[in-house]
Every structure is written in structure tokens, then in C-alpha cells.
């Protein structure tokens, strides 16, 4: 049994509005790219464009307002294959849904773009872009293999910059096509060949700027897989700063341009030399400072050592001894002089007693006949012969008289 809900009938405009809101709230329809061929194209005098997009099985109405279509840089025409991006909504007055186009790309490019996105997502899911797969770019490669066209600007830029930054670096070029259907295959062969050699430290592959179609060789799936299998680190350098290719995502390092790849590949020798010389200066200054410090310490120790040296004590003792010696000499000399003076005095006295002196003055010495001195009257008798010794001879005499008379105590000369 069928139950019929008894609802209030809606007005046409309410239905249309309801559908419109439904469409606008849909995730897919509110931001959609539609591929198709242009038909029934009208560029209205108001500036808006009206046309249909169709394929073999159907068509959809489309509108592109003036403000949006002014931005397209190519002319739309009947039969043209395009990708239109925008949203789907309802034109309520006609009860028609249509595509409100905000942007249009030519379909050839659209396909490339979609292929790119699909491949990118696929490879990303497989983990080909994973950061832990990235190999370290060597700091100072001895030989760099370059896979690119031998006639393009890219190889010239790369060589010029590598030679300028790091002249000792060797470069081996594997020339290939860099666009067109055969390019990916050739590039893959070049990469595999260079990778099989054991003298290549780093590979650079890429090309100079070009249209999306021209750069598309670097969005090839086989190339991406080849790159991801390389054992040699690789830098990709495709087109300009704004161009991203699958090769860029798989490579170990993406350089925005071929010139930049060269900059990233080798260090700057001038900078290295400066850095190196700074280190050398630092090394010398540290060791000099150290040696100076040791020298100073040594000098300090030497001073201390001298202070406590037995030699030094010996010196002191020597001075002491010298002083003693001087004192001793002084005392001795003094004593000697005193004795000398004493002797002189004695000598004087002695000289006074010398009989010869008295004789010289006219005194005589009396001796008996035995030659003995006659000092007293008791030593002679009357008649004895005595001799008188005078200065110049001897007088022989005879004692005739002895007078005990005045006594002379001392013979004072």
C-alpha cells in the first residue's frame, strides 16, 4: 500500500531555488573542471560568453561572465577542445542547470595537467617522494654527470657556474634529447649509464625553461622510477623556478633552475679558502698563546728556582766568608803593625845598649888579659895588665891604683 505524503505544493521558483542550493552545496559540483568541445559559442555584447560544452554523448550549457573571460589569454572558438573550471548551478528563470565557468585551459594542456596530477598522486602513494629515500648530496663531488642537451643553455649555465665556484670538479656530459616523445627514454639511459660508473659522485639532469609541453619529458613515469632507483645522488633542474615536474619530486634535491643546480652541486672555493685560512690563523694563534703562557710560567719557575737555589745560598756564604776574611786581614795587619812598632822600639832601646856606639863617642871598654870585661874593681888587682879598647885600637895598661870610690849605678850613655 502506497502512502502519499500530503505536502504543500511548491512554487516553480521554490523548486528551482531548492535545486540550486542543492547543487551549490555539492562538493564536486561547486568546484569542477569539465572537458569538452565548444559549440554554439556566443560572445554577447554585454561581454558575457554563452556556449555549450559537448562530447559524443551529451552536452552542458555554459556561461562565462565578462570579468572572468577577460583573463583568458587565447581566443575561444567553435569546436575548440577545452577544460573549463568553475561550478554548476541553476539558472532559475529558465530552470536550467549550467556550468558557470571561471577559467578555461586548452584541453591538450588540460590532459597533460591531469596526467601529471594522476602520476604525481600515484607515485606519492607508492612512497617515491618520501623524504627518507632522499640521498645526501655530496659536499665536494669529484665528478658530476650531467644528463641534458649538449646544445641548450642549461649545460652552458651548469658548466660556467661549476667552473667558477669549484674549478677542480670534473664534468661528464651525457647528451640527450630533453623534449619530445623519445626524450624520457634517452634520459633514463643516460641516468642508468652514469649510475653504473663508479667515478660519478653526483648526477644533474634537467633543461632550461619552456612550455608545459616542452617540459613534459620530465613528467614521465619510467623516468621517475629510474630516478628513484639510482644509487648516485641526483639533482633535478627543470625549467624555471615556478615549474615543478615529477622528476623534481623524485630527485634527491630539486633545483629551481639549471644554474641553481650547479650552485647546489659544488661549494664555492673562495668561501672555502677563506674559511680554511681563518681556521689556520685560529690554530696558529691558539698555539702561540699557549706557548707564550708556558714561557711565562717557565720564567716564573726560573725566578723561584733561583730564589731557592743552593747556588744562591753559596753566594751568600761566599760573601760571608769574604767579610770574615776581610775582618781577619784587618785584625792581623793591625796586630802585625803593633808588633812591628814594638820591635822598632826595642831595636831603639837595644841600639842604646850597643857598646860600639859608646866607643864611637869616645868611651873605652876595659878587658883583662883573658879578654873578659872588667866591670868592677874587684876583678883586678894591682899590677894586672888590662886592655882598653878604643874606637881605633887597644891600649895596654897596668893597674897601679885601686880606689874604692864613688859607685856608678848605671852606665848611662
Amino acid at each position, binding site marked *: 500500500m502506497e502512502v502519499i505524503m500530503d505536502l504543500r505544493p511548491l512554487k516553480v521558483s521554490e523548486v528551482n531555488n531548492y535545486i540550486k542550493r542543492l547543487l551549490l552545496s555539492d562538493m564536486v559540483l561547486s568546484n569542477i573542471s569539465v572537458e569538452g568541445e565548444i559549440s554554439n559559442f556566443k560572445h554577447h555584447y554585454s561581454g558575457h560568453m554563452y556556449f555549450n560544452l559537448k562530447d559524443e554523448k551529451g552536452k552542458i550549457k555554459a556561461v562565462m561572465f565578462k570579468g572572468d573571460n577577460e583573463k583568458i589569454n587565447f581566443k575561444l572558438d567553435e569546436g575548440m577542445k577545452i577544460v573549463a573550471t568553475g561550478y554548476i548551478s541553476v539558472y532559475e528563470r529558465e530552470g536550467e542547470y549550467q556550468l558557470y565557468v571561471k577559467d578555461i585551459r586548452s584541453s591538450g594542456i588540460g590532459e597533460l595537467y591531469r596526467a601529471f596530477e594522476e602520476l604525481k598522486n600515484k607515485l606519492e602513494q607508492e612512497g617515491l617522494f618520501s623524504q627518507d629515500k632522499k640521498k645526501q648530496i655530496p659536499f665536494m663531488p669529484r665528478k658530476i654527470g650531467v644528463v641534458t642537451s649538449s646544445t641548450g643553455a642549461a649545460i652552458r649555465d651548469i658548466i660556467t657556474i661549476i667552473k667558477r665556484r669549484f674549478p677542480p670538479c670534473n*664534468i661528464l656530459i651525457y647528451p640527450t634529447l630533453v623534449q619530445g616523445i623519445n626524450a624520457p627514454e634517452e634520459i633514463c639511459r643516460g641516468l642508468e649509464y652514469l649510475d653504473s660508473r663508479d667515478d660519478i659522485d653526483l648526477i644533474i639532469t634537467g633543461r632550461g625553461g619552456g612550455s608545459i609541453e616542452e617540459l613534459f619529458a620530465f613528467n614521465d613515469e619510467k623516468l621517475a622510477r629510474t630516478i628513484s632507483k639510482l644509487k648516485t645522488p641526483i639533482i633535478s633542474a627543470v625549467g624555471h623556478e615556478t615549474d615543478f615536474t615529477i622528476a623534481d619530486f623524485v630527485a634527491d634535491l630539486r633545483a629551481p633552475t639549471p644554474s641553481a643546480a650547479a650552485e647546489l652541486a659544488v661549494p664555492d672555493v673562495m668561501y672555502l679558502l677563506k674559511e*680554511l685560512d681563518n681556521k689556520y690563523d685560529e690554530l696558529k694563534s691558539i698555539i702561540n698563546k699557549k706557548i707564550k703562557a708556558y714561557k711565562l710560567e717557565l720564567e716564573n719557575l726560573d725566578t723561584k728556582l733561583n730564589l731557592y737555589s743552593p747556588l744562591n745560598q753559596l753566594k751568600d756564604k761566599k760573601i760571608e766568608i769574604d767579610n770574615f776574611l776581610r775582618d781577619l786581614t784587618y785584625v792581623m795587619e793591625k796586630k802585625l803593625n803593633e808588633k812591628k812598632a814594638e820591635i822598632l822600639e826595642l831595636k831603639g832601646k837595644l841600639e842604646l845598649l850597643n857598646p860600639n856606639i859608646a866607643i864611637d863617642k869616645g868611651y873605652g871598654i876595659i878587658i883583662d888579659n883573658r879578654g873578659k870585661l872588667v866591670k868592677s874593681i874587684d876583678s883586678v888587682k894591682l899590677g894586672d895588665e888590662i886592655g882598653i879598647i878604643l874606637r881605633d885600637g887597644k891600649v895596654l895598661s897596668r893597674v897601679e891604683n885601686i880606689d874604692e870610690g864613688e859607685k856608678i849605678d848605671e852606665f848611662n850613655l
Partner: protein
Amino acid sequence: MNLTYEEAILELEKILDELESDDCTLKESIEKFKRGVILYNHCKDLISKAEGEIKILLEDEENTKEETFSMEV
């Protein structure tokens, strides 16, 4: 000496740190200094080597040969 430039620089930096730290005897310091000079010379040699070659691979009948690449061509 087989050290790469980075290895040599790293060792040189280590030596500088050690010398600076003041923990070593005079003899050790002199030894380290000598080693530092050797490392310095090694690094300098590595970056002052003769100009590298630029070659291009040419293929003919499955033979690959290398030829000097001239930018003028």
C-alpha cells in the same frame, strides 16, 4: 691522507676545540697543532687541485667514448 674535505675540516674543528679547552699538555698541544697543519694543507690541496676536465660522451656503434667538451661548439 685519505680524508675527504669534510672529514678533514671536521677533525680540524675538533682540534681547535680541544686546543681551546686548555685540557692538554704542551706536548699534546704541539702534536695537535702539527696534525692541524697537516689537515689544513690537505684541505687546501683538495680545493686547489688542477682544473677539472669537461667531457662529453659520444656513442658510435655501441661504443661510448669521451671527448673534451667545448662550450664554443
